């Protein structure tokens, strides 16, 4: 087989297709991927918006919640992808995949492409639920930006958790690690509540949390009212974090059996 006959885009597409077939073989996984974050948004958005008397950060609680849930949804996809790796490793197909005519970057790229596709579906479901059910006022001019930013929030978590799942070989150890990271990142961030009035130590940790950076960016795009300089700084930090996570994932994949 010549390299021209199997160009990089086809290799990446083949990996993404395999991931799609794998995930669509189980509707439980699909439900988890697509509906679980929407359930969070609807339950918390509808419930807490009526309980809270005062609006948060100049809007309803549903409006405040939407960017955070969009980022959390991408994080959930990354968690599911990392668990799928354990399934693949346990039945041996993961190592067989590594003997296929793909570069390690193709392998990662294909899985990321699948996550981006699922992320796009998820984001559409979430944004539609927010606009039509919770009456979140996202202007039409900001919708595309919000959608793209939600997708851009996916790669860092995908690469990071994928690399961690390769390196932490034991399932029980990974479950502990993932719960700490997932919940820790969610709770020490502005996903569910504003952090401006939190203790200084809390804010310090939250500002070092990549989830905070992407939630801030999404919130800025959706509703404005944030400092451009701060958003640019957070976008830069996020891009650097994504690049570092990609390199870590690539190295982990290259040494998966060492």
């Amino acid at each position, binding site marked *: 087989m010549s390299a021209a006959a*199997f160009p990089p885009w086809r290799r990446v597409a083949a990996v993404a297709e*395999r991931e799609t077939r794998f995930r669509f073989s189980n509707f439980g996984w699909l439900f988890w991927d697509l509906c679980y974050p929407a359930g969070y948004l609807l339950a918390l958005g509808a419930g807490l918006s009526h309980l809270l008397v005062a609006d948060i950060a100049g809007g309803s609680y549903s409006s405040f919640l939407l960017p955070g849930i969009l980022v959390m949804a991408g994080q959930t996809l990354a968690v599911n992808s990392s668990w799928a790796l354990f*399934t693949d490793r346990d*039945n041996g*197909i993961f*190592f067989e995949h590594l003997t296929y*005519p*793909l570069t390690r970057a193709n392998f990662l790229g294909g899985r990321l492409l699948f996550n981006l596709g699922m992320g796009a579906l998820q984001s559409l479901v979430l944004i539609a639920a927010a606009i039509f059910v919770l009456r979140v006022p996202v202007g039409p001019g900001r919708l595309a930006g919000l959608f793209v930013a939600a997708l851009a929030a996916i790669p860092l978590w995908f690469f990071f958790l994928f690399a961690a799942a390769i390196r932490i070989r034991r399932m029980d150890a990974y479950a502990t690690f993932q719960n700490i990271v997932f919940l820790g990142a969610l709770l020490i961030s502005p996903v569910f509540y504003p952090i401006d009035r939190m203790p200084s130590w809390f804010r310090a940790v939250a500002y070092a949390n990549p989830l905070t950076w992407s939630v801030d960016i999404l919130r800025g795009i959706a509703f404005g009212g944030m400092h451009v300089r701060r958003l640019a700084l957070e976008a830069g930090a996020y891009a650097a974090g994504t690049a570092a996570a990609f390199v870590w994932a690539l190295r982990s994949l290259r040494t998966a*059996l060492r």
Partner: protein
Amino acid sequence: MDTPPVVVRDLVRVFRGKTGEIRAVDGLSFEVPRGSLFGLLGPNGAGKTTSLRILTTLLAPTSGFVRVAGFDPVREGFAVRRSIAAVLQDNASEQFLSVKDNFRVYARLHGQPSEDTDRRLPAVVERFGLGEVLSEKAADLSIGMRRRVQVAKIFLLDSPILFLDEATTGMDPLAKREVLERIREIAREGRTVVLTTQNMDEAERLCDEILIVAHGRAVARGDVDSVKRLHAPTLELRIVFDEDPQGLPEFLADYHPASQTFADRRLTIRLSGSRRDAANFLAALSARYRVADFEVSSASLEDAFLEAIGEGDGK
């Protein structure tokens, strides 16, 4: 001159763990000519699988020179992977996909156009008796059947170099025979096959050349006959006499047998030497005694294997 598709020189792989170093592969060297069937034989822990993992780009060697299809598996892993197909030891399958989708995904991930896959698939399915399970999920198949799917996949492709790690383990005799036959065909087509096995009968029937490894080192190498001659150079003769042979022990003593047993006019004796020596012995024996029947057999590859790894008689 044609460069061998697989070249391994002084290959070393050391695993470092909490309990110290393990030299899984300790200075292996071999070459596999194009279109040949090469067998890596050895007991568990001999270093066969580690060697295969290095050749298939899964593991980096600690030191040594390795080339597959002319490429370095460490620096040019992608180029190596474009030339190979591998069946690893685990029963690897896309568990949650149907058998048919297992084939399609495999071919797709190897860059094979769908129309080629559709054209080849019916023959592969028929040969491996997978027609009735095509729409079943791999996870629902027996281990032997899953192994059959795993091995059958490589016959969808035209990869010039195949690596098979204990490929027929867990298969029933019919499926095993089919796989061995297909592997032979592949070699006849000019493709190169490197396989590991613990099944001596399989290696004896299949391989052009074998390398016996123990503790990561080569202990015997060559074609099956020469390894057998070198490491188990005895012939076993079973003779039946018409009447009790008088003075037989004295007669046999001149031939220095490796072992001998005699009961009920039946003699079993193991002699060193060639088949011509055995013929001379039989001629002398039948000139002196009335021989009713005889049978001569050479040592099996299993005998040679056990001798080579130091587990044979008297070792």
